């Protein structure tokens, strides 16, 4: 036990955690933006809507690992960037579907009401429809965010040293059951604390907001 709980090991894991959070954070931000755009397009229909639909369906029905391998081995991007791009490409499709669910939940009357107030379509979307749509899907969005943090561990398949990677590197140096189990527990605990706090925080905020509205 005591040979695992050492400062250098924590620092080493912390470096990995930074990579995990960098990739996950960048992927979350970018895919939220792109996902929202795709959701709006698909909801709107027309040529661009169809294109968005094709992208979403093609990407979300293939595994994330495939995108990570492809971007790592077939593009000249540096490893961490390849990871970010691959995850963004993949998660954009997933977030687009969630946001679209929110858009569908907005009553058509809102569009008309906005229009009669002199808003143009973009303005209605920006100030009336999207805020409500996103608010309605905060729980599944946050749950997808935690999934993104977890799924970042797939980048270890191409040797990017995220938290999982650093953990496995250390694992290679320890060979007793107690050490290996402690390490697994420690790594799992780090992921757990992060994801659990995020979902708890989101849940509480959502409840408070829901109370404030109704």
């Amino acid at each position: 036990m005591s040979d695992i709980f050492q400062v250098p090991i924590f620092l080493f894991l912390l470096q990995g955690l930074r990579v995990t959070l960098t990739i996950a954070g960048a992927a979350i931000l970018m895919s939220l933006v792109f996902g929202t755009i795709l959701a709006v397009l698909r909801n709107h229909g027309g040529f661009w809507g169809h294109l968005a639909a094709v992208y979403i369906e093609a990407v979300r029905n293939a595994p994330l690992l495939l995108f990570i391998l492809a971007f790592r081995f077939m593009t000249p991007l540096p490893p961490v960037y390849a990871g970010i791009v691959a995850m963004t490409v993949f998660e954009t499709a997933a977030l687009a579907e969630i946001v679209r669910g929110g858009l569908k939940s907005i009553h058509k009357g809102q569009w008309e009401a906005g229009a009669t107030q002199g808003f143009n379509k973009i303005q209605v979307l920006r100030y009336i429809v999207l805020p409500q749509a996103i608010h309605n899907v905060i729980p599944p969005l946050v749950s997808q965010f935690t999934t993104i943090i977890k799924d970042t561990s797939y980048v270890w398949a191409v040797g990017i040293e995220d938290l999982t990677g650093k953990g496995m590197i250390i694992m290679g140096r320890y060979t007793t059951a107690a050490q290996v189990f402690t390490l697994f527990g420690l790594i799992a605990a780090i992921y757990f604390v992060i994801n659990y706090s995020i979902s708890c925080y989101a849940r509480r905020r959502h409840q408070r907001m829901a109370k404030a509205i109704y």
Partner: protein
Amino acid sequence: MPGPFAAFKWEALLSDWNVFAEGFGMTIAVSVLALLLALVLGIAFGMMGTEKSRLFRLVNRCYVELIQNTPLVIQIFFLYNGLPYIGIQLPIFWVGMLGIGVYHGAYAAEVVRAGILSVPKGQFEAAMAQGFSYRDTMRHIILPQAKRLAYPPLTNLAVNLIKNTSVMAMIAGGDLMYHADSWASANLYYGPAYVVTGLLYIAICFPLATYAKHLESKLEVSV
């Protein structure tokens, strides 16, 4: 320099099609069994989550939160590299099936729980008043109604499960992704290998995802 999608690379892939077929078979076998396991776990733990007993609810929360908040990759690595230290060396197929089944079982449990909670409490009380046992109430009254609501998310869950079987590539699991990547890194014909792999996954996932949408829209109409 020939492009990443040069014709001869496609020919090489065609002549090695059995490599991909073998992996595809493994992926489907693991998917089906893991899905069954996930459903069984989902129903069992989902029902626990709706119990009055605090112990049952605690068991439900522990399972769901522990599994949902840690990565599948770590769980699979644990089964693969951790368990042998205490003398349990599961065959690779079991590692995949158990790991993937247990992981998605946690998501299934949440879906099932939400489904059961959506059935008004009065129905439960009415059934009990009619002399139904707990088991019969669940089986004949509650679960059939919960099922309707749980079906679409469960179908989506099946799609995620199939995609996540690719985690086996990280433990030399012999699934589609492993064989594709191994084939590609041996001859560096990445382009065709990844495209064909993607299409094979889409071939099973897209119909399921479309079916889920269909179920969802039916649900919306009836509600």
